[in-house]
């Protein structure tokens, strides 16, 4: 069932088209991640959905209600959509208790019980309730912001890079905690991030955004393995792009003859492999011969540049090993099918 539908949303700031025709549908209870480089319009999109700004064109339908079209829009406070901003955006003049209870209308005892429950849900110590936001760490502020947004039991939750202020370790932990809370509450979620790993790990549906448009929308696997173009492929992770001659589902490429995921296409094309499909063997095995042109040791992995004949070079991260050094001959093997860009 479609829960949120965006149709050809446009938003112009002066000469910059922040959003340039966005279409998206989100099913109830799902998690959607919007990923894209800085400045591509992610925050603008969330602000339109939350009702902080009005679109220039296009419409937003949420749970069967028209929230915005070119002429009118439902104000933010009547939408019932929760939002956690990039920096938490806690009210600096209120305590944590008052922040979380801000949108709650109930008598004190009910309110306090609910606040305690929310604190527990986001994994914070109730002793913090009396503090002011500036006495909390960045990660704790994010959790309070989440609790505050959850307090009103919103049907849709918007998360704008909520983890970007956190360090790597805390980031994964907080993301896990937030995902669990949202799943348990069955809240439909829209997450904005510029971290592709985060998007792929978090979502059921990933929308890759570029310059105000969605380049591709699909499941994490689909956008990762079958990106629509080279730029999308590169944005979502390391990609090895090869020129090839394709016919009958097979590609003649510098890495030999490879199966491709498109049996209908015939002719010249570019194909893509992900690094995990490639094996580098030092003593024989199946595959194509190549030379290690350069090797950079970076701890558990090494960054190697591999030359095939004298025509083609590519970079690759492989697990570090003692014995490999520049100038060595290796055999390159490929597992699975290559992806074909049409």
């Amino acid at each position, binding site marked *: 069932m479609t829960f949120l539908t965006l149709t050809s949303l446009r938003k112009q700031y002066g000469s910059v088209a922040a959003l340039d025709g966005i279409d998206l549908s989100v099913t109830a209870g799902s998690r959607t991640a919007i990923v894209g480089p800085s400045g591509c319009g992610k925050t603008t999109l969330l602000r339109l959905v939350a*009702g902080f700004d009005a679109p220039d064109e296009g419409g937003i339908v949420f749970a069967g209600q028209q929230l915005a079209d070119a002429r009118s829009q439902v104000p933010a*406070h009547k939408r019932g*959509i*929760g*939002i956690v901003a990039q920096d938490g955006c806690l*009210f600096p003049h209120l305590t944590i208790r008052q922040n979380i209870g801000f*949108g709650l209308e109930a008598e004190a005892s009910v309110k306090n019980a609910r606040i305690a429950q929310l604190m527990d849900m986001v994994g914070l110590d109730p002793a913090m309730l009396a503090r002011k*936001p500036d006495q909390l760490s960045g990660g704790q502020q994010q959790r309070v912001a989440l609790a505050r947004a959850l307090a*009103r039991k919103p049907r849709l939750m918007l998360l704008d890079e909520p983890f970007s202020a956190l360090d790597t370790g805390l980031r994964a932990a907080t993301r896990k905690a937030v995902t669990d809370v949202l799943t348990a509450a069955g809240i439909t979620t829209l997450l904005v991030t510029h971290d592709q790993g985060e998007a792929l790990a978090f979502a059921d549906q990933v929308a890759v955004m570029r310059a105000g448009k969605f380049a591709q929308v699909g499941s994490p696997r689909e956008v990762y393995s079958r990106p629509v173009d080279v730029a999308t492929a590169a944005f979502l992770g390391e990609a090895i792009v090869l020129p090839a001659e394709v016919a009958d589902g097979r590609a003649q490429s510098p890495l030999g003859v490879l199966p491709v995921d498109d049996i209908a296409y015939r002719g010249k094309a570019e194909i893509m492999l992900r690094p995990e499909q490639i094996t580098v063997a030092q003593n024989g095995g199946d595959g194509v011969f190549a030379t290690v042109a350069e090797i950079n040791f970076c701890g558990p992995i090494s960054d190697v540049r591999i030359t095939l004949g004298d025509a083609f070079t590519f970079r690759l991260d492989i697990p570090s090993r003692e014995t490999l050094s520049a100038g060595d001959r290796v055999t390159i093997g490929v597992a699975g099918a290559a992806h074909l860009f049409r």
Partner: protein
Amino acid sequence: MTSTTETRITIAPRPRLPAASSWTLTIAVVVALLALLPLGFVLWATVVTGWETALQLIFRSRVGDLLVNTVLLVVLTIPICAVLGVSLAWLTERSDLPGARFWSWLCVTPLAVPAFVHSYAWIGLWPGFNGLPAGVAISVVAYFPFLYLPLSAAFRLLDPALEDQAASLGLAPFAVFRRVVLPQLRLALCGGALLVGLHLLAEYGLFAMIRFDTFTTAIIDQFQSTYNGVAAYMLALVLVLCCFVLLGLEASLRGRSRYARLGPGVARRPKIARLGKWKYVALLLPAVTAAFALGVPVLTLSRWLIAGGAGVWRLDEVGLALWQTLAICLIGGLATTAAAVPIAWLSVRRPTRASRFLEGCYYLASSMPGVVVALALVTITVRAMLPLYQSVATIVLAYVVMFLPRALVSLRASIAQVPVEIEQAAASLGRSPGNALLATTIRLAAPGAAAGVALSSLGIMNELTASQMLAPNGTRTLAMAFWALTGEIDYAGAAPYAVLMVAFSLPLTFLLHHQSKKIAGR
């Protein structure tokens, strides 16, 4: 400023003060002692009077009447000013009011008109208007800019993301204003309200002109007619206590901290509210305010100027008053700024508990009404240092006490912008510490010092109470001449003096407005 940083300062082993700081500290302490002279005097006078006489003089119906007048005046004027200030600041900063910039300037301009000229203008139009209603109405138009200025700066600094966030939590626009915007304006509201309150307690000319009795007018009457010293001292004591009540109220309402923005980056530009069809209704507020606060003075002044013709411009007298005013403004402004340099430097470069305490002393001293300062200095000089009675030195000291914080604010901001490394570099090139300070920081902070001189001069130019009581024989500033002429009911003759005061205050007022914008970063 959190309490943790304070404790850290006391726990850390204190480095020995370099020579420059110890000298600066000594001067700052001496200035603080001088500034606290009036307050000390009032306490001393009370003690000398003895309990019995003091109680007799304080608990009488006259004091009760004055107290009722004062309380009513403060309790009515401040809320009206606050509502007017918030509404005007919101309209000019956060709505698409046509000509918002223009109105914002007009909202500050009333400060260029001395309070007693406001009241002269009103009774010029409505001669029968007096008592409490007149006092409140004229005070509102004369003093609301003290609230408008900090409030409009605070509106510019608000982070609109908080308002968006509150809306997403289900609050309707008015609730957002009440629960998110207003609390963040609290600091500006409290500071501005305190300033208005202190002016209400200290003002003489405005209320004397409309025959509304306050402690200040009563003290001056006492002083001029019978010179009943003890009774005047006891009225001054009650007045000082009123000031302390205001200061205490403000300190307890202000709360603990300023609300800094959390999180990285710069706040978005605030959203501008669309007034739509309300636009023209909304225009009424600044228009009516400007009509009363500026239109009335302009109207009365031009009426008297036309009625008086060329005859009122007696160039010898007006010229002499102008020359004397400019001279005393310049001397007073320079002295005030010079007196503020040590504490300004200390509070930026060596912020310690002692420097914060000293700063508090200056603010406390300057919140004493001019009449108390003058009464104290008159009595002290007459009794102990007669040659200094009605000397330039004494009146300049009064101005320093009253206007030092104005210079301090400007100086501090500009000293903070000079990197301390420059000062250290000068010292490493062989300058003595004091010399290094003069050659670098003071030189580079000159624009701030100039602003300090200008702002304290603005205060001096429009000061009437203390000037009247302390001015050397034969001195007649613009304010004094204006006051003397209106006392003789020569309203036409007084007009040129008022026009000159306004003309010289205008650029300084705009400087004030500009500075408050710069502090807000726009």
